[in-house]
């Protein structure tokens, strides 16, 4: 997906803070710029401040400090209805007393658009989400997925340049959710609109976004495209929040040439890539993705450190095997292997040796 940051900073959060009670900052010093046409996802656990950021952008919450700019103009004092931002709500917020077509016509009506224009636009928007035949229905007569499409069409029908989505797929079942993820991203890119998407579902964030902002504790922990986020997490929160992860605690022994050795709490020595450790003696958490663990010694570098591991559990999951190991005194170390014809199926009780490429093992903050 094209990352189009050259078009400038369409939405800018400049040192934005937000507090509800005057004691606790829900959003601490947020700086973020979103390019025109970008699909940016705010990802984080609940209470991390992501929804508050979205609400400030939509105009339903005011920033306690700092400035929000939309296309270069400060919007702090513009009421929500004048911001021209489309929004899809968590539970769709379709108006139950109006038909689908009336729901879609509503934003056009309040913009004093003529009847024929209105009807044409409503029809186009409904066709866009494949709901052309449902204009006369009431929201209550639609399934969750259909309501979702209508809510999307309603947020887009008045052709806003910016669309906000607040966990729009939360109420759908898994299959429908995956399908809608695909549709929403396609639609957003086809129409070239800027999208800010809030979710706590990391899969959704990874599959849909141009960039993901991982929120925790009122701060952006990392802002990066999905692949970077997954493969090069900058701190242990991101590493653990995104995808599955094995972490081992230890102390840095040596750092040289971009590779460090870490002495684990169990006494074993391993190789790792220093990310936010700077000098020997520092405490660190190393993180290794389950699919990057290697137990075929031939694929490791010569002289690489290996660890003894005891197989505790072997789970057959169809496309992959998931093996739980006891490593360095911890018994929650997980390894994932692809279900290939030549793949070894480990048996519980077996003792094996595991290792990894130093760049796959990241030494992060403790």
């Amino acid at each position, binding site marked *: 997906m094209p990352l189009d940051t050259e078009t400038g900073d369409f939405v800018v959060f400049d040192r934005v803070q937000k507090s509800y009670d005057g004691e606790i900052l829900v959003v601490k010093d947020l700086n973020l710029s979103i390019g025109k046409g970008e699909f940016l996802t705010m990802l984080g656990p609940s209470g991390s401040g992501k929804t508050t950021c979205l609400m400030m952008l*939509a*105009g*339903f919450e005011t920033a306690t400090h700092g400035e929000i700019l939309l296309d270069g103009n400060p919007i702090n004092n513009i*009421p*929500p*209805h*004048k*911001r*021209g*931002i*489309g*929004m899809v*709500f*968590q*539970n769709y*917020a*379709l*108006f*139950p*007393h109006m038909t689908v077509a009336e729901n879609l016509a*509503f*934003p056009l009506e*309040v*913009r004093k658009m003529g009847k024929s224009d209105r009807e044409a636009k409503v029809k186009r928007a409904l066709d866009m989400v494949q709901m052309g035949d449902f204009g006369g229905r009431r929201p209550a007569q639609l399934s969750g997925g259909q309501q979702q499409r209508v809510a999307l069409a*309603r*947020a887009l029908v*008045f052709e806003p340049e910016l669309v*906000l989505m607040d966990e729009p797929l939360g109420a759908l079942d898994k299959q429908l959710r995956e399908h809608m993820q695909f549709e929403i991203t396609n639609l957003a890119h086809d129409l070239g609109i800027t999208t800010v998407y809030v979710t706590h579902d990391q899969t959704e964030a990874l599959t849909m976004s141009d960039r993901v902002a991982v929120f925790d504790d009122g701060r952006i922990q990392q802002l990066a495209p999905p692949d970077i986020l997954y493969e090069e997490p900058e701190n242990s929160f991101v590493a653990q929040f995104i995808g599955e992860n094995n972490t081992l605690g230890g102390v840095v022994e040596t750092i040289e040439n971009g590779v460090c050795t870490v002495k684990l709490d169990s006494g074993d020595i391993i190789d790792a890539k220093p990310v936010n450790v700077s000098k020997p003696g520092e405490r660190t958490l190393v993180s290794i993705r389950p699919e990057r663990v290697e137990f075929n010694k031939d694929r490791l570098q010569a002289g690489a450190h290996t660890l003894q591991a005891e197989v505790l559990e072997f789970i057959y999951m169809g496309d992959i095997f998931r093996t739980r190991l006891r490593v360095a005194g911890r018994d929650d170390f997980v390894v994932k292997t692809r279900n290939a014809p030549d793949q070894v199926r480990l048996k519980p009780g077996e003792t094996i040796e595991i290792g990894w490429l130093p760049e796959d093992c990241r030494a992060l903050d403790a």
Partner: protein
Amino acid sequence: MSDGPVLAADGTPLKRSLARALRREKMRAFLLVAPLLIFIMVTFVAPIADMLFRSVENNIVRDTIPRTVQALRSWDSNSDELPPEAAFSAFYTDLVFAEERKLHTRLGSRLNYEKTGMSSLFRKSGRRVGRFDTDEYSKAFTGLDAAWEDPATWNRLFATGNTAMPETSDTYATWRAVILENEDDPLAEEPWDVLFNALYRDLSNGNAFDDPLLSAAKAGLGSIEPVSIREQLVDVDEDWEDPEVWKTIQTYAASYTPGYFLNSADLQLTGEGVSARPENERIYIKLFQRTLFMSLVITFSCILLGYPVAWLLANLPARTANVLLILVLLPFWTSLLVRTSAWKVLLQQQGVINDILVWSGLIDDAGRLVMINNQTGTIIAMTHILLPFMILPLYSVMKTIPPSYLRAAKSLGATNWTAFWRVYFPNSVPGIGAGSILVFILAIGYYITPELVGGTQGVFISNRIAFHISSSLNWGLAAALGTILLAAVLILYWAYDKMVGIDNVKLGG
């Protein structure tokens, strides 16, 4: 699969098996509700049924003066002539027994509802009926044969109910019953004048059977001066010469009458049919109109005052909302009388509000506002009292409207007002409906408050019903008015259901 009915595991048809299983469950459900059901039947359904029945029931005329009713049946009330002497005589006989049983005043009161003056007419006639000149008959017959003085003679001749002398037999039977009711001995009691009157009439009509005593009496009939009952009655009161009096009796002779209902609609049943009551007696239509109008005003005031409060309640944080809710409910925990009396203190001409207005110079002392003992007082006090019934359903409906609706509307470009009016308000209409039905139905039948603060101009139909129940004792009319009120509520409910749909009414959830 076989073609026969599906069978259960034990071989019985599945349908029967299912019915048996369901019956047991139904039985259990019924037993659970039975105590309440019985309670409601006894304390609610039965009284209402009785009330509905009372509004048309009219056995009193037929039961009290059966002979008169019978005699008037053939009388043409449109002829402008008085009923025949037979009817007067029948009335005399009826009145004698009714007076003895102390029933004539009740009948008088009943007929007084339909024609004023009937009550005093009956009371007066009852007082005088013992002194009618019919004792001439008694003296004459006793003069012919002293045996007539002996109750045993009467018993021998008429106790068998001889059809040859119907009037005498009939009168004797009633007389005997009356004597027995008084726990006296019919064989020891001296025969009354009314018996001799019947005897004279039967004999002069040629009705007799073979008995020496009767033959002798018949022979001596010519020497007896006939007594005109009509003249006797007219002597008591000239009104007995007025055909209208007899028309009223004839019109209300039936066991069931629409009279009470017609009365409730300011109409009356006369010999010529249904006609409007005299101008000065028409009050019920006006009262019904006033009741409906004021209930509507009260309902509307409740919506106006309650809607913002409910909105606030629904949108405040839970803790603040709970405090406010207690304030809303506070009136519920105060006695209705205390609240109404408080309004008296506030609203009267020497009351708090007027004093403040005078003190602040907004009105002068001579121009104190009249805010009580009129419609204003009733509307103010009842709006206050019924307000919680509007706020609570509104609140519970508004609670269910997600705040995201308003946000969505605003994000779509609607101003605050448009968002409220186009999105929030339509979703709160079921609450308005529920509250309005509740308030309106309560208001339409309200009694205590209008009674206390309504004066004469601010009273409702219910106050009139109470008056008829406890003061005028015209229960039939009270029942008819109550029935109309009940019907009005049901019709309004039905109309509301047709227009809005009762499914749209929510008390929450």
